[in-house]
């Protein structure tokens, strides 16, 4: 039953709803991300973008609705079980391991993925393949020269890259990036997104981003959220030319 089915959209949500008290933070949200898509999720502050990611990854439980990965329902699964099915996220605010080195952190995630993490009787140096993989991944994200520096001492931009490295180490099928370039200077955020667009084409990516240049450069489809609901989903041209979007989002408040 848990064999990996490759049919259906990579990620699908049906009728997701959630209230915080009287405030509806998610209203009847329907999503369908085909495999390999590059989706941008945009919307004004407080539109419920991060809440949607929290609902999809299981940090929050929806009041109603269902979530599927390749037609397998995951609505009732805990966050870590969803990761095992390939649904992985990053965080807008760095959520790292301050006193571990990048090498330790990534090796840890790889051990977790390979099922070696419960092993207590064999020392880490025996896991040569996992260490090699960790080092390769860090090299790809230009973190190999700081792989022995404690995370808390890394430059902010490097911490943002490590944030992505940890997610990639799980070998995700669907990757949800919550403002991956948040706080990174503009000239560097391009580099960061180049790394993201270089990801294997079978990984499905959804990213939240405020910088419209980046959104239009890297997204193949765009979802616009307003007040907990999806206003529109379409190609970059459709979204750019939609008068409603212009009024509600682009016209209202300038971002980036």
């Amino acid at each position: 039953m848990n064999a990996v089915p490759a049919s259906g959209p990579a990620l699908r949500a049906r009728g997701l709803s959630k209230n915080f008290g009287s405030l509806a933070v998610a209203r009847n949200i329907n999503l369908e991300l085909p495999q390999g898509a590059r989706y941008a999720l945009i919307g004004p502050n407080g539109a419920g973008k991060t809440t949607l990611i929290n609902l999809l990854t299981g940090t929050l439980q929806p009041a109603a609705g269902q979530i599927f990965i390749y037609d397998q329902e995951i609505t009732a699964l805990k966050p870590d079980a969803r990761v095992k099915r390939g649904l992985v996220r990053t965080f807008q605010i760095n959520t790292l391991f301050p006193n571990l080195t990048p090498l330790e952190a990534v090796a840890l995630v790889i051990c977790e993925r390979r099922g070696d993490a419960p092993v207590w009787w064999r020392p880490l140096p025996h896991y040569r393949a996992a260490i090699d993989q960790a080092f390769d991944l860090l090299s790809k994200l230009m973190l190999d020269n700081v792989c022995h520096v404690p995370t808390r001492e890394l430059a902010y931009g490097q911490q943002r890259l490590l944030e992505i490295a940890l997610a990639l180490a799980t070998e995700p099928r669907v990757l949800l990036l919550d403002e991956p370039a948040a706080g990174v200077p503009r000239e560097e955020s391009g580099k960061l997104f180049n790394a993201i667009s270089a990801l294997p084409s079978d990984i499905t990516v959804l990213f939240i981003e405020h910088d419209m240049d980046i959104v239009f450069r890297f997204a193949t489809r765009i979802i616009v959220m307003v007040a907990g609901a999806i206003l529109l989903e379409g190609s970059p041209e459709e979204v750019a030319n939609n008068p409603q979007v212009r009024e509600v989002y682009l016209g209202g408040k300038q971002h980036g």
Partner: protein
Amino acid sequence: MTDVTAAAGAHGYFQAQARWRWLEIVFWLATLLPFVLTPSYLVLASQIAITALFALALDLILGYAGLISLGHAAFFGFGAYTAGLISKWGWGEPLSGLLLAGIAAALLGYATSFIIVRVSHLALIMITLGLCLLLHEAANRAGWLTGGDDGLQGVTMWRLFGRFEWDLYGYTAYAYSLAVLFVLFLLARRIIHSPFGLTLRGIRENAGRMQAVGAPTRRRLRVIYTISAAVAGVAGGVLAQTTQFVALETLSFQRSAEVLVILVLGGAGRLYGAIIGAVIFLIARDQFSGINPQFWYFWIGLLLVVVVTLLPNGILGGLAQLLAQQRRKKSS
């Protein structure tokens, strides 16, 4: 080419972490010195070994997994009473009795771990404290079983390996305590340098992120909590066997607090901190209480304030920092 050497550096990093350092070997050889240098202090030396083992148990959950407990004496005392009762009921063989004490404490640890992993911070401190008080009062009330306030009398141990008498000077007691400490230290060292040990440090650093990369954090915490309870139970068991008595105090809040103080003084999250802390604390108590028994907590209070203020990672953490600075100076 450069990539190959850099990757080799990555392997070397983990190897260097797990490698035995010469200072460690010297340290363990030094633990044999009391036999020759201070044979009249062997009773104190075995107290130190037992307390160090108890602090080591706490270090596994506090220093590595980030679980704070103010009630770890629950397992220490449970192990002590188990070992004591087994002998009182007619089975005086030390090693098997000790094994049973460890198993009993592990079962208690596993049972309570389901509550423990659900809470954190202040709630965690209160629940561990509450469980310990509960057990203390239960042992106090069950006088028919435990001897209540008078403690458990009538514990008689058979000779160790059928050969070594439990002598009055504590030769056998110290050898036994030290051997048990060493074996379980090896186990703890093995754990912290394994993938499981790395997972624990990950949970300590950021449990939320661990879930977000697919780790079942609660299950992992339950495992280490159970192991820690077993080690604490063995420590209590050794105390019961070597002193041939179990005091109600083994389950007390004071003992829980003391072991926490010892670990913080020595330095949590580095295994040897537990041992160094126990050595300093018990020798200081022995010396100071010789001068004025009422006054001794004044000095321990002062020591605690000074160490925590100046050396947030404990005495061992401070020493490690000093060594690193020296090394940096030399290399620059």
